[in-house]
């Protein structure tokens, strides 16, 4: 469990270019959570993920890990780095090894696992991100963009972090690649990483993947709760430069046109079911 209390983080402190990226953010991450993190560009999502992963200089506010309060963030950060695996935006830009295998093995090696364990982790991670065994001996630079992305994600997954954070993992993927990635996350959350945080700009991704979500706006955490509750506040989301999933807007339109649909429909599947019921009901 990771708990942030009133965390404020400023980039380039004491300089003319100082910028408050997080402003009094309090967030509790329980084991087993699958949290979606949304917010418009520059709202502080990436900064928040990096604070949780223990990668930034100390912020103001307090951080506790597994119920233990840390006097200073630096010691907490050491704990956080062990627990949290962060997949950065465009993680494929961080590949460096000669072969895919060795790149995925980088993390487990740093964890000082035995050779056998490392081998097991690499193969398991590759399987989970759908990288075939034949690719393991290739150079990561010879792969396609989507494959590179998956290798990079495997590099973090192989460390088996308790908390896995992915910063816009679907950016720039085709619809199929996106679907595959999201299902992969669902599976990982089931039995590999206790807690998963998915940062995304896509309301559709959030609606279909996670149960709870947090919304950032201008460095503040403005909403935090079940996805249904958040997407029920369409006007508020729109005022923050976000929106509800496309399908909910269609459903809203249908309701306005007189169809007796529920307002809490946020995925295409659910909408199809509801509409089918009405059609079969002969109305």
């Amino acid at each position: 469990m990771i708990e942030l209390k009133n965390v404020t983080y400023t980039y380039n402190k004491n300089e003319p270019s100082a910028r408050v990226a997080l402003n009094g953010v309090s967030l509790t991450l329980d084991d087993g959570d699958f949290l979606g993190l949304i917010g418009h560009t520059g709202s502080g999502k990436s900064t928040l993920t990096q604070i949780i992963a223990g990668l930034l200089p100390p912020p103001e506010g307090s951080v506790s890990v597994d119920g233990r309060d840390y006097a200073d963030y630096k010691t907490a950060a050491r704990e956080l780095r062990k627990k949290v695996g962060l997949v950065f935006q465009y993680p494929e830009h961080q590949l460096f090894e000669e072969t895919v295998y060795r790149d995925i093995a980088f993390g487990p090696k740093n964890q000082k696992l035995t050779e056998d364990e490392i081998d097991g982790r690499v193969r398991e991670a590759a399987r989970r991100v759908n990288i075939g065994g034949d690719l393991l001996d290739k150079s990561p630079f010879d792969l396609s963009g989507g494959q590179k992305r998956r290798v990079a994600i495997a590099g973090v997954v192989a460390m088996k972090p308790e908390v896995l954070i992915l910063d816009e993992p679907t950016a720039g993927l085709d619809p199929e690649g996106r679907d595959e990635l999201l299902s992969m996350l669902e599976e990982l959350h089931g039995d590999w990483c206790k807690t998963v945080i998915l940062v995304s700009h896509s309301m559709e991704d959030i609606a279909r993947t996670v149960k709870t979500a947090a919304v950032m706006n201008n460095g503040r955490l403005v909403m935090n709760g079940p996805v249904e509750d958040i997407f029920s506040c369409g006007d508020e989301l729109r005022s923050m430069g976000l929106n509800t999933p496309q399908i909910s807007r269609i459903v809203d339109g249908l309701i306005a046109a007189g169809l007796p649909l529920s307002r809490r429909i946020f995925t295409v599947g659910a909408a199809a079911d509801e509409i089918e019921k009405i059609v079969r009901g002969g109305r």
Partner: protein
Amino acid sequence: MLRDITLGQYYNTSSPLHEMDPRTKIIGVIVYMAVLFMASSLWEYMLAALFTAFLIKISKVPLGFITRGLKPLAVIMCFTLALNLFMTGTGNELFRWWIFRITDDGIVLAVKMAVRLVFLVMGTSLLTLTTSPIALTGGIERLLSPLRRFGVPSHEIAMMMSIALRFIPTLMEETDKIIKAQTSRGADFESGNLIQRVKAMVPILVPLFVGAFRRAEELAMAMECRCYNGGEGRTSLRELKFRRVDAMALTAGILLVSAMTALKLLKNGGLI
């Protein structure tokens, strides 16, 4: 640490130095450097210090910003200090140990060199801090253009420099991100012996270079798409003009050089 590299960073504000024609500033820096190397007596160093302080004052760049540029130079500084301290053979010996001997001349020389370096870095950082990269390279291009006749590709040099300057912050940002990403994968850059530490740089350097090449390729493509084909017949949006501040700078420069020469003459004449 990365944030300490102020070289090539522009501090945006408005001041007489910011308004000055980049050509004036470039020539000014060259004169300033020459004057620094001319300085030898205490009085001359005081003059240089005073002038540097004056420049910093009118530039409106916070002092912290300028001194921060000195930090990465600490290593070079220590090196020159040590070199001058131990390698100067002349003067009265003050201290001797094994092959090292320290003389009073050595100390004076070491301190002078260190002070000189500090001023040198502060003066040149002022140039980049008060001149936007575009203005700077524009100035260089114009200054070099008489050499075109002798086959010096002045436009290309300026373009290369402006691109390099433009990408310093981008590359630093990228480095920062890569370091964080590899740290998150358990990479350790702080412990181990020298070889281990150098090895630990590989996961940073490879992605950085790959990224730099990718960027270069994309940029070249983007430039070609906009019909860039070198300097031939290219005009500037902002024409450079000699203005009042430049005249003032010229005066200040002449004053500085004359004052320096006067001090030298006085010293040689035994008056101070």
